[in-house]
């Protein structure tokens, strides 16, 4: 067994996994607060990446302005989305919400390249390209930055939900909308807030992932990675998003390292879903997920 290689795979897996959790976080926040499901999470990330690339590459603005524009753009986009599409669907069957976000994903995938152009653009984070050597690990600065951003947000949102007044109110809304309303919480405002927060997370996710993969429609494929991550961790748990991200990141890297030579490639995209199916069979609500009990 070549331990150097294994460590390398695990180290990369951890970083990629944290970047997955950043994307998964947007999903978790929306689900936690509003019980709505965002199948367009990957397209959100793509939109943010396209926005920042348009600012940085096309209009040649400084990097930070691009990031700020992406954040503002995504926040207003998710606000509008909540108002126009999701609010009329409140109280409708879950199929309706799922289909609405799938429809949204189709719109973004269609219009994104139409507005911003279909070619791949590269944005670079201001961190350099020299790999960092850390004992047995060799780390890419882009991935390290992504992981740090993810950790920062994960910490921030954990604090927000546990300690801040708004976070507690949001948890109340998530737990029982009618009771929360009766206690004087403006439920609709918190729905909008949750979507806005998801917008911020997707915006930064878009910038980091865009810097790593290059910006075009394919960035949206990350959305497919969100599901294994949140299912493993639990749909309504921020800690779950981290743990799920780490598991998926490490498993897919190990699979790519050890199984690819045996079956001829592609296990990286395959292993997380197998893992997810097993998780759904054994523990459908995830590692940290809240078990819903149904009464007649």
């Amino acid at each position: 067994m070549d331990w150097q290689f294994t460590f390398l795979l695990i180290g990369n897996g951890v970083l990629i996994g944290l970047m997955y959790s950043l994307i998964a976080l947007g999903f978790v926040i929306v689900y936690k607060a509003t019980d709505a499901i965002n199948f367009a999470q990957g397209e959100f990330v793509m939109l943010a990446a396209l926005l920042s690339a348009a600012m940085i590459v096309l209009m040649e603005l400084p990097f930070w302005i691009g990031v700020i524009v992406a954040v503002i753009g995504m926040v207003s986009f998710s606000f509008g989305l909540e108002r126009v599409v999701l609010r009329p669907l409140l109280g409708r069957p879950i199929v309706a919400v799922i289909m609405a976000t799938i429809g949204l994903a189709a719109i973004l995938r269609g219009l994104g390249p139409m507005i911003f152009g279909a070619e791949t653009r590269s944005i670079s984070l201001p961190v350099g390209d020299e790999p960092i050597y850390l004992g047995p690990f060799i780390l890419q600065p882009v991935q390290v930055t992504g992981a740090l951003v993810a950790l920062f947000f994960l910490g921030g949102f954990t604090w927000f939900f546990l300690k801040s007044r708004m976070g507690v109110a949001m948890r109340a809304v998530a737990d029982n909308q009618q009771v929360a309303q009766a206690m004087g919480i403006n439920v609709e405002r918190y729905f909008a807030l949750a979507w806005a927060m998801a917008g911020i997370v997707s915006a930064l996710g878009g910038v980091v992932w865009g810097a790593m993969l290059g910006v075009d429609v394919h960035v949206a494929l990350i959305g497919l990675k969100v599901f294994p991550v949140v299912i493993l961790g639990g749909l309504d748990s921020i800690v779950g998003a981290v743990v799920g991200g780490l598991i998926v990141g490490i498993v897919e890297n190990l699979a790519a390292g050890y199984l690819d030579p045996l079956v001829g490639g592609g296990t990286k995209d395959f292993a997380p879903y197998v893992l997810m199916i097993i998780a759904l069979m054994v523990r459908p609500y995830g590692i940290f997920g809240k078990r819903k009990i149904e009464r007649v």
Partner: protein
Amino acid sequence: MFHRESGYFKTTYAADGGLYPLPIAKWTVLCLLTLFVALPVLTTSLLGAGSAEYYVSIVNLILIAVVGALGLNILVGYTGQISIGHAGFMSVGAYTAANLAVKFDLPFWLTLPAGGLMAAAIGIIVGIPSLRIKGLYLAIATLAAQLIIEWIINHTPAISGGSQASIEVARPTVFGYPLKTQRELYYFLLFFAVLAIVGTLNLVRSRIGRAFVAIRDQDIAAEIIGINIFRYKLTAFAISSFYAGVTGVLYTYYLGIANYENFLITTSIDYLAMIIIGGLGSVLGSILGAVFVTLLPIVIRLTMENFGTLLFTTAELNNIIPAMRLGIFGLLIIVFLVLEPEGLNRLWRNIRNYFRVWPFSY
């Protein structure tokens, strides 16, 4: 002439649940059927053989889509289980039939049910988690199933037939007569589409269909009144994937090639769009949705080719048309969900009811 119900009184449950609620319905069905049977002949005499071939080919695509949409509607519309993996089941059917047809030289009347049954078997396996999970979790499980099926087909040369993951299949032969032109294939496809429509109509008014609707409306209550939820959910998955498998086989015979690129996740979404735009939980809705969704890209392409040149160059148009198709598609899904959740079927009923009571408002 709009008061066609007048004077007919139903006195038994059997009459109330009949396939033809009114005597005039039989005549309508007969007229429609004659029209459809005569369609290739009519178009040929009206438009000439060349363009008739093209228009009939569009109708053929619709007929295939009708089968798939009906199957998905049984699962999503009638039973309330979400599936984003419908195209996965289609590819199972397509590759099963293609392998049987090429390797064992079997005729279509054996490979077609075999493809359907194989898809049904896979559908049952995918449906097993549906007892423990529902809603979002089930949607994600079927999504995973779709991706796993895609990956397996793509990475197993024994199934996918080596390079390009495609297998060429000979056109079907009926009584020793090979169907070559679109107009000949039309009858082949029409037969199966009608079979699927009649089958679904009969299924949803049977004991099984009522159990499906009960599970959709209140699964726990359904279990309490004695419906075996697990068995019926799996039945729904099996029937729905059987339809999907048959759709895949029909595509294979229609195109003359089994290729996984026709059964990607976007196809699953196309079919979901069909039943949502058409109307969830309705046979007519599935048909209307299939017509609408199949025609939409063709209409968009024609419009853009005729009027788009005013705004864009031809090279730009090639990029814009697929993007526009996707965008308009998503927009329509959302618009229907928000404004008319019961779809085209409901719009049709509204129009019909308006004329039925016309000139009064009720």
